[in-house]
């Protein structure tokens, strides 16, 4: 019995081969390397149904409000700045690491633009799907709100107008906060 086991062990040692130097480990372990879209620079996402309802609220219909935000261009700058501030914010930077910031900047700008009534469509996922499995806490959301407020303040958005955008975002907290 012992002899059999030892022989088998010995045989397996002999048969064991050192892996080739140029082994494609991603292929061996079935790792899919996502390629960024050459045009948009975004990583691919699983398909989902696109709808403005995913933005989580009905938009304002006020041209004055959109003007307060500097129109589409101003809103895009605010969304980009919000993401940049958050990536540099030690409180929440880790949440953003490993996620597609190119896509986030675009979808966040679309959501803000749609909600303030500046004439965009929101093509991102709904708030529950977009934040699923992130384990976000109220403190994280507060930090993001502060960064958004800072971005809007830098862009010269009047405080009352800032609050009107926050009013559209606040109800979706139930889909974002998990703990």
């Amino acid at each position, binding site marked *: 019995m012992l002899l059999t086991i030892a022989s088998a062990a010995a045989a397996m040692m002999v048969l064991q081969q050192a892996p080739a130097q140029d082994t494609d480990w991603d292929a061996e372990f079935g790792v899919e390397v996502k390629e960024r879209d050459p045009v948009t620079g975004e990583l691919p996402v699983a398909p989902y149904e696109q709808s403005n309802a995913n933005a989580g609220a009905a938009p304002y219909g006020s041209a004055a409000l959109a003007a307060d935000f500097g129109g589409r261009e101003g809103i895009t700058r605010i969304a980009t700045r919000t993401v940049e501030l958050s990536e540099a914010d030690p409180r929440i930077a880790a949440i953003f690491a490993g996620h597609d910031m190119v896509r986030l900047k675009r979808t966040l700008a679309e959501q803000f633009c749609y909600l303030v009534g500046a004439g965009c469509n929101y093509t991102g996922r709904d708030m529950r799907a977009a934040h699923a499995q992130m384990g976000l806490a109220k*403190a994280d959301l507060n930090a993001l709100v502060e960064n958004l407020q800072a971005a809007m303040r830098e862009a010269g958005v009047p405080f009352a107008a800032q609050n009107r955008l926050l009013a559209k975002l606040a109800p979706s907290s139930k889909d974002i906060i998990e703990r």
Partner: protein
Amino acid sequence: MTLFASCVLAACHGAAVLAVAAGEAPAVRIEDLPVLDAAPQPEPMPTAGAATRNTALAQIALKPLAPDATALSDDIVRIGRTRFFKGGKLLLTNGATTLEGSSGGGIARWATIAGRQVPGGVGVSGHATAIELPDFGWRSYGFAVGVGDRLELSIARANFDTRDAGAVLGLGQGYTFNIDTFGAKLRVAGDLVYGEAWLPQIAIGIERKRSRDSARVRGLGAADDAGTDYTVSATKLLLARSLLVNATLRYTAANELGLLGFGSAASAGHKLQLEGSLGYQLSRRAMVGVEYRSKPDNLGLGEDDWMDLFAAYAITDHLTLTAAYVDLGRVATFPGQRGGLVSAQVAF
């Protein structure tokens, strides 16, 4: 014997591997090895897209810690999963402090919880308040502990100096009424800022008050020198209008918040009173508003409802100053008690 065979085979295997390695790669010489002190040369990445991502991730992973970073991170105190004094609340959402030591406006209790903590944290808040009136002076100070978004426990002392009026009232020149208030408040539903606009933050609470002038307040006709207020508060920041709206129902028997005792021989029971606040948010740090508080008149001294016009400003994340014009009406038979209130709150 079997062990020996295994060892021999293993040795052969090892030798074979060595032979293969030696056959494939030329002999390594010391001078060919990389110099560890030299700046590392980045290896080229296989594809452009993956390279950008991998490099970005590697930079995050290998980023050196801040010079002042420690293994304890930035948690000041942490017991189990509970973080103490770490903050995280949005500015002003812990409210100012009421005359009775609770989180709220100046004279009205709000459903907010004292301290700057978020769920999972414990925070503290301390305050000092002064009111100057034509005939009286109010000084109060206190301390509160907040547990998450859920529970607030507070303790406060108020001293009410009757000054010259004390002599007129037969109490003695500069007689000072003192009262201790022990408060508890529990948030039962909703959120001040988040969630649906129609669902306010709702909290229930009690305030146990004890006059330290038992003989005096009984002499004035009060039925008791201690009493308990029961409150239900609903508070919401209506972001679309930048408005803070608060309503509190208070079931109380207190005379002048309890300074003059509780109830009277004629009307000993509790009565339902209303406190309302309306605030406008000027900025993240500033709010102005108006408050109203109805009060019973158990002693028949013409006790009036109170109102104030307030301005609150968060000078830092931890220090909030409040100034108000207050109209307390008739106090202890002295009419026209209008004056100024200042209050400072320090919260963590």
